């Protein structure tokens, strides 16, 4: 009664609605909002480690994992492959992406393989490293790191956004409320970025991580970002190797028209990076090598960088060949690895 004397019923209703919204979000969507505002830099977002020992991958915290599950403790004898990367390995669909196809191919070769697709769209080297760190907790037999240089921009932008409201300064208090922050974020991503041209946002919007990063066309800054991406990839490889996990680097290539109606493939120096890192327990496969020599290489691409399902299948087969080459080092000696060692390669040979 006293409250309604001080505040109008309408005001109290507004507070109640907002309070209920916040409470509902925190109660019923607790898992979904975990790490939501880390923008991919949360160590655990998207990994639901259940009491029964199953790890479920779900969409949370800016991580759009394909829904999958695996045992926290790797079953004895299982060859567990984690594929970490961006939208290319994530694929056009879960079963149309090379991680799934790789698992199938290996199983056809009687390898008890378990391939998990940990790829996330827009993830560059920095955020892939966060996923890699988490994946090391689940005893992978092989980590496939899909190296691309096109997402360093998103990495930087999302890092800035993750830092934006971190402190407990009073100006950031409203953004500690989930529904406020979610609405703010939705407006930024779904309204502000698509509707207002970048040239305008860069100059006339007070705080805009997207435009700020996009506007930094300073060649030195861009170069520094590429260097950071490469150094981070090297650090990720080193991290995996410290844990004695073999790493297969797949370096991205891009396909461009050459002006004469034909196409050429470009690796942006990633192949050189792959070669430089290859060595003890680190293997390297160039996408350019896989596709460039094919007469209709471009037919496997849906755009300059993304693969069609046929491209994913071809890449999966190439990875199987690479694994076969290194089967002894990868602990796959118990299996028949002579060439052609499995159904798919036999049919390819025919």
């Amino acid at each position: 009664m006293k409250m309604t004397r001080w505040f109008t019923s309408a005001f109290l209703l507004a507070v109640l609605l907002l309070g209920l919204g916040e409470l509902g979000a925190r109660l019923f969507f607790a898992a979904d909002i975990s790490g939501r505002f880390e923008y991919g830099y949360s160590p655990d977002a998207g990994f639901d480690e259940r009491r029964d020992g199953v790890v479920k991958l779900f969409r949370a915290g800016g991580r759009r994992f394909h829904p999958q599950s695996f045992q926290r403790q790797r079953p004895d004898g299982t060859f567990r492959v984690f594929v970490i990367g961006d939208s290319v390995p994530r694929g056009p669909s879960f079963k149309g992406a090379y991680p799934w196809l790789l698992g199938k191919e290996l199983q056809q070769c009687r390898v008890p393989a378990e391939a998990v697709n940990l790829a996330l769209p827009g993830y560059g080297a920095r955020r892939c490293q966060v996923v890699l760190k988490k994946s090391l907790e689940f005893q992978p037999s092989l980590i496939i790191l899909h190296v691309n240089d096109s997402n360093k921009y998103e990495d930087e932008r999302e890092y800035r956004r993750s830092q934006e409201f971190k402190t407990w300064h009073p100006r950031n208090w409203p953004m500690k409320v989930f529904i406020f922050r979610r609405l703010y974020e939705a407006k930024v991503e779904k309204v502000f970025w698509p509707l207002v041209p970048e040239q305008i946002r860069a100059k006339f919007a007070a705080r805009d991580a997207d435009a700020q990063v996009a506007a930094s066309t300073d060649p030195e800054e861009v170069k520094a970002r590429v260097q950071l991406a490469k150094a981070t990839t090297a650090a990720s490889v080193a991290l995996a190797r410290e844990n004695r996990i073999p790493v297969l680097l797949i370096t991205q290539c891009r396909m461009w028209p050459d002006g004469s109606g034909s196409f050429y493939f470009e690796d942006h120096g990633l192949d050189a990076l792959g070669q430089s890192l290859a060595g003890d327990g680190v293997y390297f496969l160039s996408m350019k090598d896989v596709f460039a020599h094919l007469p209709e290489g471009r037919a496997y691409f849906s755009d300059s960088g993304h693969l069609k399902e046929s491209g994913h299948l071809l890449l999966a087969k190439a990875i199987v060949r690479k694994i076969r080459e290194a089967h002894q080092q990868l602990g796959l000696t118990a299996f028949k690895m002579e060439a052609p060692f499995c159904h798919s390669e036999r049919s390819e040979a025919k």
Partner: protein
Amino acid sequence: MSFITWQYLLFLPLVLALYWRLPGRWRLVLLLVASYFFYACWDVRFLALVLATTVIDYLCALSIEGKSPGPVPVLLLALLPAAWLGCCSLALPASGINTIIMLAAGAVGLAFFGAHEIIRRLAPEKRPRLFLILSIGFCLGILGFFKYFGFFLDSAHNLLTFLGLKPNRVLLQIILPVGISFYTFQSLGYVIDVYRGHCPACPSLLTFATYDAFFPQMVAGPIERGKHLIPQLEKTQVFDPVYLQDGLRLILVGFFKKVFVADNCAILANYVFAPQTPLNGYWAVLGVVAFAFQIYGDFSGYTDIARGSAKLLGVNLAVNFRFPYFARNPSDFWGRWHISLSTWFRDYLYIPLGGNRGAKWETIRNLAVTMLLAGLWHGANWIFVLWGAYHGLLLILYRVVPALRSLGDEKSASIGKGILAVALMWVLTLAGWAIFRSANLHQLGLWLAALGHWQTGLSLPWVSSSLWLLIHVAPLLLLQILTWKSRDETDLRLLPWPVKGVVYALMLLLIVSSTEHDTEFIYFQF
């Protein structure tokens, strides 16, 4: 300190908590200290100007009524601004206050004291008028020096150069004190009211100083009349929950207009009116529409927050905006836009000039002079004078062209005519905003030229940006529709309370969703 900072959101509750706990007179002390602190957060030095205006008008008003204090108090008060600067220079050596500035302030104080003493010794019947002139002279002198000196110096230099002479350029960097036009006009209005007998001279310096520097409205209005605000400050208020309810509502609506509407529209307006922006007709129109809503949301939002803050202290401030974009004619527009300024010019300039009582050409002259000065009030720039002239022309045309008068007449018009009149006035208002927002005549020319080019060319795509504008303007228009019947832009009392509750919640969500584009209030620069 700005209303849209977290500092203000801490400052206001602190002031309120103390205010309602303190007994009568101490509340004024608190309000004065809080107001000076609020102003000093921008620039502690310019508090000397507020003090000067306060002292001059306080003494002149008392002297007009023949209640002038003795020479010693007058001298001490006249030297108060110089003393303040001295304290600042001692406490803040980096403030840039040097001996010359302090001596100048002291000289102005002594000059005022001397003039005051001379007038006091004259015949009683001459004194009121001369004290009024003294007040107007000193206050407009301060305003003129800080706001217009550089402008007139530059204009004189340009004119002489144009005439083929080669004058030496005098460089004098004068910083424009925040809100100087507002508090100077408020203070002047009070002295004129005292002179006319519309308002008694305030005997308490504490009350008058609080009136002059009342923090909710000091830097950007509404420009309050002494007879309206001083009695409210003098009265010891008893807390009423209605103050809290109305105050919070006004602040919420103010933040909505400023943060959601104005700051988001500003992104497009700033782009269009930035130098070297390639414009076509679409962008020119989009930019000026965006600016129209920016300046409206910005200024009326500020006023609502000011009114809400004052209401929380139990003080009612004047309504400054009343659906201005639904005006049907130029005269109606000025009865809805920045009402406290337009009524100030009406009462203290237009009517004393003769208003519309004389011949038609005299009315035209009076309108022209009033609007030119109203334009100049907005800023030391010929573009504002042009804007004032443009609105003066609209007012004159409306007065002399019968067809326009018939179209815009509120009483006799049909619904169709009314819609046409509102639409026509809206377009005319937009043209005025194009003048107002342009940095100079060259930019205005480019904007006008863009209206002749509707090809896409180098310009950015405009459709998505129009959608951005629409998203931010539509909720404001919806709010105006909801409040239309109550004749107060912030009053939702005619809605059922559950609907009001939902509207409040939505407004809060929209405010929070827009916190990334915070920009300063436009009218602070005036």
